[in-house]
């Protein structure tokens, strides 16, 4: 048994108390950090759920933007002749058909074997940019198609000519095979189609612009 009383016990130096504010600062900061670390963890889990919705297969009943970001054709037409007279390449334009209706027609890309489209209306007038008449929704140049089980779309490609447009081919696609984002279809030439490759982009309508932009990349 010790005979040292509380009165006799060694006292901490006077400056020892000065550490208390530092400890309180660390305590408050640590407490907040602990709370937010938990919230961030939960937030990340929610984000990953959102990611799944922005990728993967299509959801029945949901409407999607669909456009061809790239179409490549074989160097000769269906009769195995050059596309245009002279050395010029074909002027490529495509349509998307849904339920037998052409729901989207692209602009024409001149003299190309590989034509590409951004899916965005970058051909804007300055008055559109300076005014507030153009929304991000209007800027997306694509077919709007609602996905239902068993639904199909058709992509038809033409060589645009002054006299008459020449059929380059068509390709029917089961929508169930499409995924959100990039979809590539490599095709063999046959008697009815001279399309070598179609790259389709599928974007969910109603997503925020940031997500759409990321999917388009």
């Amino acid at each position: 048994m010790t005979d040292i009383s509380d009165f006799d016990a060694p006292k901490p130096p006077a400056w020892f108390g000065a550490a208390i504010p530092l400890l309180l600062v660390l305590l408050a900061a640590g407490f907040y950090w602990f709370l937010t670390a938990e919230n961030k963890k939960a937030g990340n889990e929610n984000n990953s759920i959102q990611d799944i919705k922005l990728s993967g297969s299509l959801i029945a009943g949901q409407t999607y933007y669909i456009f061809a970001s790239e179409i490549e054709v074989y160097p000769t037409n269906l009769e195995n002749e050059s596309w245009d007279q002279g050395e010029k390449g074909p002027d490529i334009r495509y349509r998307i058909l849904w339920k037998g209706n052409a729901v989207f027609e692209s602009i024409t890309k001149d003299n190309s074997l590989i034509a590409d489209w951004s899916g965005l209306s970058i051909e804007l007038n300055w008055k559109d940019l300076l005014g507030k008449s153009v929304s991000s929704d209007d800027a997306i140049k694509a077919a709007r198609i609602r996905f239902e089980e068993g639904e199909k779309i058709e992509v038809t490609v033409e060589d645009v000519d002054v006299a008459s447009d020449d059929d380059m081919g068509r390709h029917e696609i089961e929508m169930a095979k499409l995924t959100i984002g990039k979809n590539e279809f490599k095709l063999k030439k046959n008697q009815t189609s001279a399309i070598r490759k179609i790259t389709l982009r599928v974007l969910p309508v109603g997503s925020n612009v940031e997500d759409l932009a990321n999917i388009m990349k």
Partner: protein
Amino acid sequence: MNVTRFLIAASSLLLGLGLIAPTLTIYPQAGELTWLIKLFAPEELVISTYSILGVIQKLFQSNDIFLALILVLFSVFSPVIKLSFYWHATNQKDSKKFNSILKVIHYIGKFSMAEVFALALIIVVIKSFPGGSSAQLEWGAYMFTFSVISSIAVSLRLDSKKN
């Protein structure tokens, strides 16, 4: 616990929160072309929220070591040291020692808190964002402000005890 120590403790807790809690949120805009930027470079328009420690971290990451050290010194170390001296002063029975501690506190106080806090905010706004953007103070800024106010109250109470 006496009122002065209570105020020092409150100021310390508020300072801890003020340093780490969200202080400022920036909403970047690009005027009429905002929607276009959102399409082509959405990363340029991400809404950013900063704490004071977050600002310091960002400055370190962008190799602005000098600015980062200035902020660490004046918005973290200086207030903490000042509060420590306040607490130390409340322990003093010897009036000579008490007065000399107050002198040190007033000297340190010249470098800390409110002005530097404003400076930190301005640095972030100027360094990071294009014109047309807007900024909004978050609750961390108010915690920091209340910490400063508590600290001033402590200073006034200690001054009144000065011989």
